[in-house]
């Protein structure tokens, strides 16, 4: 009997940090606030390491019970949900990624947010986010996972709208939360279906029950429905088509927030959830196909938007959406371990990219438009080096981390259906192109920011004056360096299928009903070569257009005319949604719910009651005329009534 790991400490420690900073942080000094936040985030990371150390001695999956929660009904239809934790290899990977990258970003934030107002609030929210994310990852049943799910949405809203006095930030926060909620609706219905048909939301129980069911080969049965609904939830949380629209707007938040929540951790919750529910998906191939299609399309779609963006963070945002598409593509072909592998490497290099972007923004005094950057490599060398590592990683260049994970996905995609693979390679080419475009525009060439230096910085970072760009302080650079190392070596755990082997007890080998044929070694090498070639092509094209002949992009844009405009404006998706959904909803809500119900029924009821009282008293007012004779008349009449009544009572 293994002694308890006290898994509850892992989420509880950041919660405590959030509480301390939230309630008392206002009076603390900045040092104290950062000390508290870093201590508790670091403690969570240490606990995760401890769990990793004890991992081999555990019997897996390891569950830990914390407290009773829900006990509803009785007899055979009783529904029980507890506060419990579930630990297996998948959990461990997620745990280390979340706590490790989270801790690094906490450190970075101390430097990035040092001159901002609301310092304590930021770290309270950040720790709160860690609590919810860890609850999600460690959850032992779907309901607890849902708590974490909703909670990270809340933390995301709070952090995106951190500078809430700015209209665009507040709106972006709302947009993120609302779009998330649409996904959560699907998730909830899936939960209801699970409760109805399996009587429980506990992972062990549900998976055992599901694994006894036969696979649904055709049509839309129960498992397919559950799978599709779970995918709706994942699409909301992980910004896939059609619910991705909140992620680019979420860049209104501070850059560490973008790094942590919208690159490394929260958006990966959807992937984690799909991977965790693989038992269901394995038996619902139609659902898996939908997952794969959504992932693939999103990857391509977002990548095309990324090539025309000029805001450095927006490029990275669309890149995130695209890379998440890759992860879903992987899950969609039942290559869950490949998807998780990419999740991990993506956390490293995308986190690094965002933090580096933050460092760049900090260096140029708040400017985010890449057209006003350039030639920064001599001013901020360390940032340059780390961001180069990350760019190479995301483009999938050997031996950086992204190469291994992306290649794994592409290989498995090819096994399932060459169409996925083809779109994947195209997307890889486009990814490489826009990432190197970013790299060239930001770091190479001449610095274009001098003429319009120091214009009003929305983040309040403009206190550095119009001088030359300067490197960030050490507290921001060290996490960059650590993440750069991880982006370099992080992929090596996948060599020889070690990572997949590690996760095999979770996902099983060959238990899925997706037909795949193992690739021959030669085919694998050919595929690798093709993807490297695509990455190289992207690099070359970026070099051509943005370094060698920088006048070309404008000419090409003019040639493409309307198509280019469409891409720059994100295919007008936001506008389409606004017309199709938002406007009718708001109008309907205004006319029906507000004017009709709230004003017409509720307000009218109250107002009419008051008006009625007023009219009655208006009529009654005339009794008080000041005229003596009318008073006497009323008296006499009233007296007659009373006498009549008394006589009648007496006679009865």
């Amino acid at each position, binding site marked *: 009997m293994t002694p308890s790991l006290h898994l509850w400490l892992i989420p509880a420690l950041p919660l405590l940090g959030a509480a301390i900073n939230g309630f008392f942080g206002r009076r603390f000094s900045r040092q104290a606030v950062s000390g508290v936040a870093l201590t508790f985030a670091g403690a969570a990371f240490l606990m995760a390491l401890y769990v990793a150390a004890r991992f081999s001695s555990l019997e897996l999956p390891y569950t830990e019970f914390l407290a009773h929660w829900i006990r509803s009904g009785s007899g055979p239809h009783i529904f029980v949900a507890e506060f419990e934790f579930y630990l297996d290899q998948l959990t461990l990977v997620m745990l280390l990624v979340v706590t490790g990258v989270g801790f690094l970003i906490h450190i970075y934030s101390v430097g990035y947010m040092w001159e901002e107002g609301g310092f304590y609030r930021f770290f309270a929210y950040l720790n709160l986010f860690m609590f919810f994310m860890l609850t999600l990852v460690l959850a032992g049943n779907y309901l607890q996972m849902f708590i974490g799910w909703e909670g990270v949405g809340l933390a995301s809203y709070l952090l995106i709208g951190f500078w809430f006095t700015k209209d665009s930030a507040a709106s972006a926060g709302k947009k993120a939360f609302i779009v998330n909620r649409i996904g959560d609706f699907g998730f909830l219905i899936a939960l209801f279906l699970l409760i109805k048909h399996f009587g429980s939301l506990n992972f062990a129980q549900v998976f055992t029950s599901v694994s006894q069911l036969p696979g649904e080969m055709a049509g839309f049965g129960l498992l397919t429905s559950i799978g599709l609904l779970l995918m709706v939830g994942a699409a909301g949380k992980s910004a896939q088509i059609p619910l991705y629209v909140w992620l680019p707007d979420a860049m209104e938040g501070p850059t560490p927030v973008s790094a942590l929540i919208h690159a490394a951790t929260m958006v990966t919750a959807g992937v984690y959830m799909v991977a965790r529910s693989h038992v269901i998906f394995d038996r619902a191939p139609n659902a898996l196909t939908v997952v794969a299609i959504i992932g693939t399309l999103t990857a391509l779609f977002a990548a095309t938007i990324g090539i025309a963006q000029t805001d450095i963070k927006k490029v990275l945002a669309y890149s995130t959406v695209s890379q998440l598409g890759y992860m879903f593509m992987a899950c969609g072909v039942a290559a869950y371990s490949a998807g998780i592998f990419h999740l991990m490497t993506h956390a490293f290099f995308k986190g690094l990219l965002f933090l580096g972007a933050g460092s760049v923004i900090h260096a140029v005094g708040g400017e985010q438009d890449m057209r006003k950057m350039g030639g920064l490599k001599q001013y901020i060398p360390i940032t340059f080096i780390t961001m180069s590592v990350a760019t190479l990683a995301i483009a999938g260049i050997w031996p950086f981390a992204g190469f291994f994970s992306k290649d794994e996905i592409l290989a498995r995609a090819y096994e399932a259906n060459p169409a996925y693979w083809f779109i994947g390679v195209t997307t890889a080419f486009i990814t490489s192109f826009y990432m190197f475009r970013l790299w060239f525009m930001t770091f190479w060439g001449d610095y274009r920011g001098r003429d319009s230096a120091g214009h009003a910085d929305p983040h309040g970072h403009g206190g550095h004056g119009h001088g030359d760009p300067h490197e960030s302080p050490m507290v921001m650079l060290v996490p960059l360096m650590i993440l750069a190392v991880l982006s370099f070596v992080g992929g090596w755990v996948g060599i020889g299928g070690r990572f997949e082997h590690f996760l095999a007890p979770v996902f099983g080998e060959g238990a899925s009903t997706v037909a795949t044929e193992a690739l021959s070694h030669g085919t694998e090498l050919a595929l690798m070569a093709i993807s490297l070639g695509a990455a190289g092509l992207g690099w070359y094209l970026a070099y051509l257009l943005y370094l060698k002949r920088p006048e070309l992009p404008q000419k090409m844009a003019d040639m493409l005319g309307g198509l280019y405009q469409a891409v720059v404006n994100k295919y007008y998706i936001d506008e389409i949604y606004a017309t199709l959904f938002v406007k009718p909803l708001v109008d309907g809500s205004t006319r029906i719910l507000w004017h009709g119900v709230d004003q017409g029924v509720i307000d009218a009821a109250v107002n009419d009651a008051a008006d009625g009282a007023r009219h009655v008293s208006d009529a009654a007012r005339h009794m008080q*005329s*000041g*005229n*003596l*004779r009318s008073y*006497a*008349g009323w008296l*006499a009449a009233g007296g007659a009534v009373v006498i009549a009544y008394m006589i009648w009572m007496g006679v009865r």
Partner: protein
Amino acid sequence: MVPISYYLILSGILFACGVIGFLIKRNIITIFMSIELMLNGVNLSFVAFAAQWGHLSGQIFVFFVMVVAAAETAVGLAIIIAVFRTRETLNVDQVNLLKL
């Protein structure tokens, strides 16, 4: 031997005349006099019943009613004089505003 009901009818007529006078008349003093008429009608009723039942307390009560009516008349007429000083009118229809 006069039936008691005759006395009561007379009392009722007097009372009704008093009430109708109160309602019809416009001069405040006349209204006041109608009140006296009402009181008189009631007094007759009291004495009649006292005679019927043989209780002298009916007559004592009439005595007190008269005392009170006298006091009330005095004060009421004083008020009328005071109102007349400010309003210059004895018409009760024109004394219907609290404002001066």
